[in-house]
């Protein structure tokens, strides 16, 4: 995390209060000419974070798609229990795999732009 680069410099810390926050916020006036870009950056930042969270959620779907049941067992049990063909099962797995690949690509793009 690049934010730690300056961690050890000697600049004093300042407790935030109303007055110094108001004064410091005037720095944002220098951001004004570039406001549009900055907001766009924030949007991409939000999307990056959202894709980061979407990843474990898709992962859980992928694993579930393999048909591993809560009480153990394996793919073949799932085929027998759920009465779906192995082809169908593999197809499901592939679909989630592709979704995840797409998700990573999206995250990479958002993170680069942000």
């Amino acid at each position, binding site marked *: *995390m*690049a*934010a730690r680069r300056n961690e050890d410099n*000697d*600049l004093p*810390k300042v407790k935030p209060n109303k007055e*110094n926050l108001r004064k410091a916020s005037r720095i944002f006036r220098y951001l004004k000419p570039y406001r549009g870009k900055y907001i766009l950056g924030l949007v991409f*930042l939000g999307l990056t974070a959202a894709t980061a969270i979407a990843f474990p959620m898709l992962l859980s779907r992928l694993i579930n798609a393999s048909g591993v049941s809560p009480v153990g067992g394996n793919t073949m049990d799932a085929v027998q229990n759920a009465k779906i063909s192995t082809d169908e099962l593999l197809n499901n797995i592939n679909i989630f795999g592709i979704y995840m690949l797409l998700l990573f690509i999206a995250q990479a793009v958002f993170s680069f*732009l*942000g």
Partner: protein
Amino acid sequence: MLFVNVTEDMLADIRKESYNKLVQMPMTFFSSRRVGELTSRLSADISQLQDTFTTTIAEFLRQFIIIIGGIAALAWFSPQLCLVMMGTIPVLAVITIIFGRFIRKTAKQVQDKIAESSTIVEETMQGIASVKAFANEAYEILRYNKATNSVASLAKKGGMYRGAFASFIIVGLFGGIVFIIWWATTLLAKGELQVGEMIGFMFITIMVGASFGGIAELYAQIQKALGSTERIMDLLEEQPEALDISYSSADEKLKLQGEIGFNNVHFNYPSRPETEILQGLSFAVKTGEKIAIVGPSGAGKSTIIQLLMRFYNPNAGTITFDGKDALEYSLTSLRNNIAIVPQDVLLFGGSIKENIAYGKPGATDEEIVEAAKKANAHSFITGFTEGYETIVGDRGTQLSGGQRQRIAIARAVLKNPAILLLDEATSSLDSESEKLVQEALDKLMLGRTSVIIAHRLSTIRDADRILVVDKGRIVESGSHEELIRNTEGIYYNLSKLQFELTDNAKKEFLEN
């Protein structure tokens, strides 16, 4: 990428503007601050700001979104497990941060103690004679032993904390994770959770935990950034000198005749309000006159020069140029008409040519060579293998005091001012180079109003008038011949002091 783009643009603006402000600050601003400190802190502040805008703000928001979104996702996976997680991981993350900070603080204390004990060694070694004279060896040994023991015990304590920290990480953090896995597998066994959900849950838990830790770090960064931003805003909102730096004004140049008047001028430096340097100083200089100001040190001679350049304004009384109050001129056009050859000449890093051209930006090569010739600098410059392209300044060729002075004279020649201010170098140059400098100055002063602050009386005998300043007032005034006759006067006594050392010089001085 967007953030970096925006931030760099914005920082470039802020850098430019703060430099703009800094350069245009009045001298009072600089005299009340330590400039080196000011600029180094400014650059530290700006790089802090750079971090803040490129990473800190972005990271903060990202962590924030991950925490909120992550917790929502966890609740969606399993509300029960989410509550369990919330009760453990963030708590552990925060404890880790606080613990870590505590350890760093102890490490710093150890460093300080070590520094303290080595100060004792340094002091006693430097003052070993005193230690021995007072037969205090035993006392010093005891003092050092005490300091060393406290270093050792503090370092041991630090080591113990570090060990405890490592153990805490193992037990606490990994334990916490295992605890959640254990809870999750129980749910799994009961059929309340699926394997996929459990794995997703673990991933998000780690992400959220890391974000909690990250946000605590970022908070410290934001506190620092707040201080930096405040200081930068202080500078940006400071009132600059009333300069007129627009390019149009340089074209329609005001040309002064060179008449100067000081009317009952009172002045004290803002940094020292209790000492009034000038106490009702009055004098007048006619166009083309050559005035020398002498007096004991601290009498206010250099202050007169500073006021003439309008680095400061008088507290009371007026200074006039061509009969008009100095305040009525724009600072820029006034200073364009005055050249100063200071005591200690600062050359900027760059070629000799560039340094001479500082007197008149945009001067042609012919003008520069011409000026150098008039300043008796041409021959030594062409003596360098690279001639006018020789790099001087900190990283270049070191010029002697006399050579630097002649460069300054060449600058003044180029500037071609109506008024010339000379602050004579206190340290004397070797006689050869002094002769060259003096000759160049004589040429330069021809036809201009000149005010010379003289430290060595030998150089000012041919001044039209000599003003003796003492305690902020003019106490004597007249030509050398007039002043030297008054054996009760300050001028006579100053002369006597300076020439007592060499009888020959004294004789020569009185004869002239």
